[in-house]
């Protein structure tokens, strides 16, 4: 962070601004960057999902608004903003308004936990991984709140199913997380990334010792995000939309936004845990090879690291869309059975294997 700070102060000095302003505004910068990037990313994720699904099913997808339909989501968002905010009769007004905010704000908060590059790891707690799981489960509460507050039995049923699913899939997720923590000997996400460096390109990534864990986490992420094939709380063809049936306009947009933002963050988190985070898959950074080890090359490394983690994240998102294009929806009992009978034992097995691996390979 020091090097970027130095650059920022120099940039301010060009415009004759005192260093004190730099000291105050510098910690705020990442938050602003993160917030803007998140919203832009979500808008284009929705478009990406529609486009990718269209390609999978041999359609063309949105192609009318702007070049290649690029502004489709922006048009949709404007439509949602203009729409009326309807509060149903008998709804708990305060909770009804609170729920969409509660779904969205934690997502914004955990977005900062992920190390995007070696220098852009600005909320670096020693228990980062645990904190991630903790804050990531708050939106589940918001879903229950939304179902309860809308005074609609179908909304409540949908939200209860959603919560039951998310909670039971959180368990194997955490057990796999424990395995990763064992491998990295740290809970700090930055340290977990650094623990995946190795002499050979991409051989140190944790996907190799715990491939099973990677699969489990991927499946759990699908379930927690209420995505296909685990999207029965909001099964589009059967239930209208589950917990957010009564929501309209801006409030609905918040749920929608939170869902896609959470999807992006989950994928970034999995990429950090298993695919080496911001590390280059070649074992060296391209920018230092091209621009040399000098001033320019060193700065560009930060941006290259951001590029790598985004590439890995988008690969995982593509996989999620691929799964959505392929698999049909599960039944409710199959869903729960799969979580408790298959994934939980498998995650424990993974933990055992990882512990043995760590003990025999790295024991001193």
């Amino acid at each position: 962070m020091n090097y970027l700070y130095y650059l920022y102060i120099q940039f301010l000095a060009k415009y004759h601004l005192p260093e004190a302003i730099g000291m105050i505004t510098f910690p705020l910068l990442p938050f602003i960057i993160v917030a803007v990037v998140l919203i832009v990313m979500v808008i284009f994720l929705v478009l990406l999902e529609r486009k990718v699904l269209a390609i999978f099913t041999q359609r063309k997808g949105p192609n009318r608004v702007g070049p290649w339909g690029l502004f489709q989501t922006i048009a949709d968002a404007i439509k949602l903003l203009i729409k009326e905010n309807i509060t149903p009769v008998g709804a708990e007004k305060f909770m009804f308004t609170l729920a969409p905010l509660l779904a969205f704000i934690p997502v914004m908060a955990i977005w900062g936990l992920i190390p995007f590059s070696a220098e852009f790891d600005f909320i670096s707690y020693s228990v980062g991984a645990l904190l991630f799981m903790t804050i990531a489960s708050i939106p589940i509460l918001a879903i229950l709140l939304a179902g309860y507050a809308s005074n609609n039995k179908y909304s409540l049923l949908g939200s209860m199913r959603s919560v039951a699913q998310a909670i039971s899939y959180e368990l194997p997720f955490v057990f796999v997380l424990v395995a990763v923590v064992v491998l990295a000997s740290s809970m700090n996400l930055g340290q977990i990334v650094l623990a995946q460096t190795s002499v050979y390109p991409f051989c140190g990534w944790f996907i190799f010792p715990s491939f099973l864990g990677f699969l489990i986490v991927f499946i759990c992420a699908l379930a927690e995000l209420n995505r296909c094939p685990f999207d029965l709380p909001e099964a589009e063809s059967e239930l209208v939309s589950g917990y957010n049936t009564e929501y309209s306009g801006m409030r609905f947009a918040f749920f929608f936004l939170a869902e896609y933002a959470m999807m992006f963050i989950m994928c970034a988190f999995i990429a950090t845990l298993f695919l080496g985070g911001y590390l280059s898959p070649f074992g060296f950074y391209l920018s230092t090879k091209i621009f040399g080890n000098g001033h320019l090359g060193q700065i560009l490394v930060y941006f290259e690291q951001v590029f790598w983690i985004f590439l890995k994240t988008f690969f995982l998102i593509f996989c999620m869309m691929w799964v959505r294009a392929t698999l049909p929806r599960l039944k409710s009992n199959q869903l729960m059975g799969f979580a408790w009978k298959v994934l939980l034992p498998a995650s424990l097995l993974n933990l055992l294997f990882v512990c043995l691996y760590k003990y025999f390979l790295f024991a001193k």
Partner: protein
Amino acid sequence: MIKKITKSFEYIVALVLGHLTVLKHIFKKPVTLEYPEKKAVLNENFRGEHALVTDSGGNLLCTACGTCQRVCPSFGTIEIEKDKNESGKFYPKNYSIDLNKCIFCGNCVNYCPFGAIVMTKEYELSNQKKSSLILDINTLKSNYSDSIIEKKEK
């Protein structure tokens, strides 16, 4: 237990193969047509708007025999007003097809003993008024000349 494991292994293989099958579709071209700009290539037997065939002199082949009227499954679609000209030949003084009632089965074309009625490839028939969907003899004639011009252009 072993049976269960082998069965679940089968499931996993099927799952992976299914995903690969879906992945194959990325490399195929989309089947969607951007309709108003691009139009589908129609089959030779496509049954669109009707047209009355005229010979090179511009005279109708139709003799107003009424076969089309009789084979039409939708009662009252075709209405013909019969008349005799100077040489003693029958001809339709008025011939109208009500597209509100027509089901586009093509019976009138198949059964016509003189080949006097055909179906063009025109299918954009939507209209604001019901009355403009009743084709009279002049529109049926011009439909035929239009379809011939379209064929020549191709």
